[in-house]
């Protein structure tokens, strides 16, 4: 259970201040697949970043399993990012000149997992996203869809309970985008991983079980797709 209570986020100061989020309250239950939609600048990416503790709200409370995040130590926040959340970005964010396997291992390095187990788990993750045998490929040797698969493998390698995806198909053509969406959907259905996905594409949002629409820093609509 993730819960945003009266979250406000303001960027910049005084005259140039921009209110990105205006007293948002939003709860997400375990196992949900939530699409966050809305025009650009509506606050959807900011919401996702706050869910992933990549950003702190200006005001309001964020609770994970009922525990307020702002009270937690920095090390605990790093630990949460490491083993509770998995991130998937529009631009993949793979380390250049680094093999697919090493990219996937990254969270395990910070989790303190030993080399042998790290390698085994990273290989298993790459296999499960449909990239067996491409362990040594560098990002520039992979297609966009393959790069996003590596990124998804990295997101799931440490068994997170939540995947946070920011426009995961934004840089892909529709065929590859469809494959990636199916992959994400499978993670949600088969493994019970909660998925929070920012998208402006209605066809992507259709994969979700719930759609939350943002407008001007406020929730405009929250409906079930079921």
């Amino acid at each position, binding site marked *: 259970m993730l819960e945003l209570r009266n979250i406000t986020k303001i960027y910049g100061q005084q005259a140039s201040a921009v209110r990105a989020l205006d007293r948002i309250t939003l709860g997400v239950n375990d196992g949900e697949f939530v699409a966050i939609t809305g025009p650009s600048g509506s606050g959807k990416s900011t919401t996702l*970043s706050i869910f*992933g*503790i*990549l*950003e702190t709200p200006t005001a309001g409370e964020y609770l994970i399993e009922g525990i307020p995040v702002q009270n937690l130590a*920095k*090390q605990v926040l*790093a*630990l949460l*990012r*490491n*083993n509770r959340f998995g*991130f998937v*970005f529009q631009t993949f*964010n793979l*380390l250049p*000149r*680094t093999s697919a396997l090493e990219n996937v291992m*990254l*969270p395990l*390095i*910070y*989790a*303190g997992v030993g*080399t042998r187990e790290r390698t085994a788990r990273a290989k298993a993750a790459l296999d499960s996203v449909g990239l067996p045998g491409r362990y040594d490929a560098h990002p520039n040797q992979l297609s966009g869809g393959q790069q996003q698969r590596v990124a998804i493998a*990295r997101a799931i390698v*440490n068994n997170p309970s939540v995947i946070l995806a920011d426009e995961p198909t934004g840089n892909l053509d529709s065929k590859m985008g469809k494959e990636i969406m199916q992959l994400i959907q499978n993670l949600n259905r088969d493994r019970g991983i909660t998925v929070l996905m920012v998208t402006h594409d209605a066809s992507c949002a259709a994969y979700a079980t719930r759609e939350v629409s943002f407008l001007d820093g406020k929730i405009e609509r929250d409906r079930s797709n079921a």
Partner: protein
Amino acid sequence: MTISSTVRLAESALLRNKMRSLLTTLGMVIGVGAVVIMQAMGQGATAYISDQISGLGANMLIAVPGTTRMMGAQSAGVPLLVEADLEALRRRAHSVRDIAPLINRPLRTMYGTNYHNTVINGTTPDFFRIRKFVVTEGRDMSDEDERTGALVCILGPTVQTALFGSDHAVGKEIRIHNLPMRVIGILEPRGSMLGMDADDIVYVPYNTFARRISGNDRLGAIMFSALSQDEIDDAKEQATQVLRQRRHILPGEDDDFVVRDPREMASVLESVTGALTILLSGIAAISLLVGGIGIMNIMLVSVTERTREIGLRLAVGATSSDILTQFLVEATILALLGGMIGLLIGLGASSIVAKAISIPFVVPIAAIPIAFGVSVLIGIVFGVAPARKASQLIPLEALRFE
């Protein structure tokens, strides 16, 4: 995150920019190289000096005509020393043990059709005692040789080889200044001294030299030894007083001769080495500073370049201290790399220079831990600012950085 994976991470990051990493270490290379050269040269020079001093003989002093100048003596227009000075010293300088005249002249030596130009020295058996010269073949110069002015000579190994090749020389007769001289001994080889061949020399009895070669009682120098090490200063003082009287120098007037103590020469040489050390220390300090700033600069560039990478690492669970450590380790490895290259180059350069100026090459053991320590210190000191900058990035801002 474990130390070994941090180090491996840093290595791979540095290997991605091989050329840049190498160039960044240049200041460290020069700085540590200078430290190593300084150590090696300093120790080599010290070893050389003490070697030379012990080779000069125990408690040795030498009186030469001339006035004191910085390093040597100026002898133009100054009366020479004479045999009577020697006698006066022998009688009145009580702290003196052995005393020997020294006079020399460059002359040609001949054996059959072979000839060799060298320096003929006239001196007495005392000289060999003071200098601790040993003959490896034949016999020493005797008091009898000196008293009778015998036509005998002792050759340095270079002269022997030049005249006789590999044949035996002892017992043979050579010609010097048209005099038949019997070779009675060959000196132990001594090698080169300040770049000159110390074995290219011939010794004849002083009386022989005075009567047959120079034809007068003038001396180039008087060499003498003190009774003991504690009496070197006394011997020097007594000799100075005797010679001042002999040469009619009034109180308050400067000496027109110099009594040299090789230990003073050593201290002159040591002060030269000291000046060189200060110079090299300066170069080392400046290079290390420049090297450190170079590392800091390139690390700051690296942090900016890799902002997105840092953001990603934070997003997948790196703590800010993980990031801090990563960049600190990178800076330290860079500095260490430079230090190690500097160490090797410094050792190589020292051995070449030592060979060129013929001083012993001493591997400066102390320089190795110093090079390591200095490198690590520089890496940490100059790596802190970039590493802190990296560790204080906010994950989302770093991820969005263009």
